[in-house]
């Protein structure tokens, strides 16, 4: 129990099966509080499945999920957010018919516990509006508040996605391919943003852009075919032969190509 309580996230023997297919076969992980942990692996390694198990959108077939030593395996998604676990989505998932500011305000209002009130107009909560705008400025969306989220470019939607997640006040932030489809400049800014997150915020990152991963991560976990292959520092992972074989130096060119475009 002592090791569990020092870890922000601990996964014990997580197994997920879809019928005959085993997506995750007994994966165990421990992520200390405040760490930036990248999870990499070829397509089908189970990265996204692992995230959905932590976020609560998918119940594992077996195993336990602990956050700050507390078993959250059977908590619904919204209770996990209360416990500090917040996810961004691989494919931008926003409120496209609301404004950029309203997207963030939704998360802010929930945290401020005013989301059930209906006698004051939303515009009267000036401090919440200011806070939402500050978060938008932080992800580089200052001046875009009044646009409908549906009018944003792909890269801007990814930025808004991060702002919405931050507005939910995560202690454990799960970033599912945050740089997918971003231009190099946008990826750079995203890297700066992630580096600038509070030191006590634990960040789990699934990402295909390995430059970004090696730049940001304290430690890297490699999944392969639903199994835990290795967890180590960046330098060791780059040097590890198994990892090279499974992922980085794969001889299968088609597979590499497939990853990069996904």
């Amino acid at each position, binding site marked *: 129990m002592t090791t569990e309580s020092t870890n922000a996230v601990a996964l014990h023997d997580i197994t997920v099966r879809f019928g005959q297919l085993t997506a995750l076969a007994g994966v165990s992980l421990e992520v200390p509080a405040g760490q930036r942990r990248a999870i990499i692996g070829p397509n089908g390694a189970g990265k996204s499945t692992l995230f959905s198990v932590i976020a609560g959108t998918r119940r594992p077939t077996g195993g336990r999920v602990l956050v700050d030593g507390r078993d959250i395996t059977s908590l619904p998604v919204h209770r996990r957010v*209360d416990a500090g676990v917040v996810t961004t989505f691989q494919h931008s998932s926003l409120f496209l018919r609301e404004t950029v500011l309203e997207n963030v305000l939704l998360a802010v209002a929930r945290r401020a516990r005013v989301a059930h009130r209906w006698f004051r107009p939303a515009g009267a909560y000036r401090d919440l*509006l200011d806070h939402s705008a500050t978060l938008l400025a932080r992800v580089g969306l200052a001046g875009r508040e009044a646009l409908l989220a549906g009018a944003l470019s792909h890269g801007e939607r990814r930025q808004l996605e991060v702002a919405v997640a931050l507005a939910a006040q995560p202690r454990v932030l799960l970033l599912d391919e945050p740089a997918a489809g971003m231009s190099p400049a946008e990826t750079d800014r995203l890297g700066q943003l992630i580096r600038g997150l509070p030191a006590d915020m634990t960040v789990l990152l699934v990402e295909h852009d390995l430059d970004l991963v090696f730049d940001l991560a304290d430690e890297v976990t490699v999944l392969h075919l639903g199994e835990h292959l290795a967890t180590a520092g960046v330098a060791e992972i780059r040097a590890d032969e198994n990892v090279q074989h499974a992922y980085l130096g794969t001889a299968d060119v088609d597979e590499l190509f497939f990853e990069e475009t996904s």
Partner: protein
Amino acid sequence: MSPDPDLRRALRFGLRPGRWTVLAWAAVAVVLAAAPFLLNNYQISTLSRMLVFGLLAISATLLTGVTGLPTLGQAAYFGVGAYTAAIVARDVTAIGPVQVLLAAVAAAVVALFTGTLATRARGVPFLMITLAIGEIAHSAATSWSSITRGSDGLSGIPRVVPLPGMSELRLDGLVYYYVLVMAALAYLLVRALVRSPYGLVLRGVRDNEARLRAIGYPTGRYVLAGFTVAGGLAGAAGALLVSVQRFVSPGDVGFSVAAVALLAAIIGGVGSLPGAMAGAALVVLVRDYIGTDLGGRGPLLVGAMFVAVVYLMPQGLAGLGHQLRRWFSWRRRSTPPPAGAPSSAEPETTPDDPQPSVGSDRSAT
């Protein structure tokens, strides 16, 4: 980086209504206030029914347009409210607001219980469940004759007394004023809801419920609360109907009433409260007024109108103002020179603005 000094412009309902909106409302108020002096008795009671069905349409809009849950069940709560108000009026008190309040509470309670089942579904399954609720309510109104007197309906309901100490309203014009005031109060209540943080959450359910859960919302509870409020509102509308026609029968609980509510909500434009009001007025006008001259082919005309609106005005009546405004400003722009172009208080999106913002959607107030 310091945030914008006034961020309310970035909220859909953040800004004060523009000059034209205020003028339009003032015009509507004048017309509604003058109506009893201009219309005959049948016309004025038709106008009262328009207000009643307008409220019912608003309750349907709250679910269909705002929350994204198309419903055919609002007639059930309308009926619960109508029967409750009728019984209260007959046995307890003739004071209207008391009837409305009790009717709303009764309907909200029924909505809360039936809603725990209905709000587990979304989309077409939700529509089917609400349809079933409506049909059950209709059956109950027909066969639970110890309370409803079956298909005979409840009659002999005393005239409404608007406030304690006042005398009963004997003229249709005065009943109309009573309904107008009550409908306006209910309208303002719903308007506040739609503009509040809670209203934003309901719109979030419509847009992306999974995302809403992922930022910590137990969405089921929020939807159930919205369902309950909408039910209470439909119940209040039912109470007003009883004040207007002093009679209630299973026909007021039937599918046709639920369909009128949904049609009015859609004709009005998705999520628009004034649109729902206008949609209900149009449907009642066509069905009860023009339809009577067509030998009972009113429903056919309503159906044709519905098809026409869906094809010609996909944003409904609420989009009409915006369409006209675009058309006018396009005309204005094409007439050189635009010297002294009126500097409207609201930052309007110009027709050539490629980026939609809230400014382009203000008509959905």
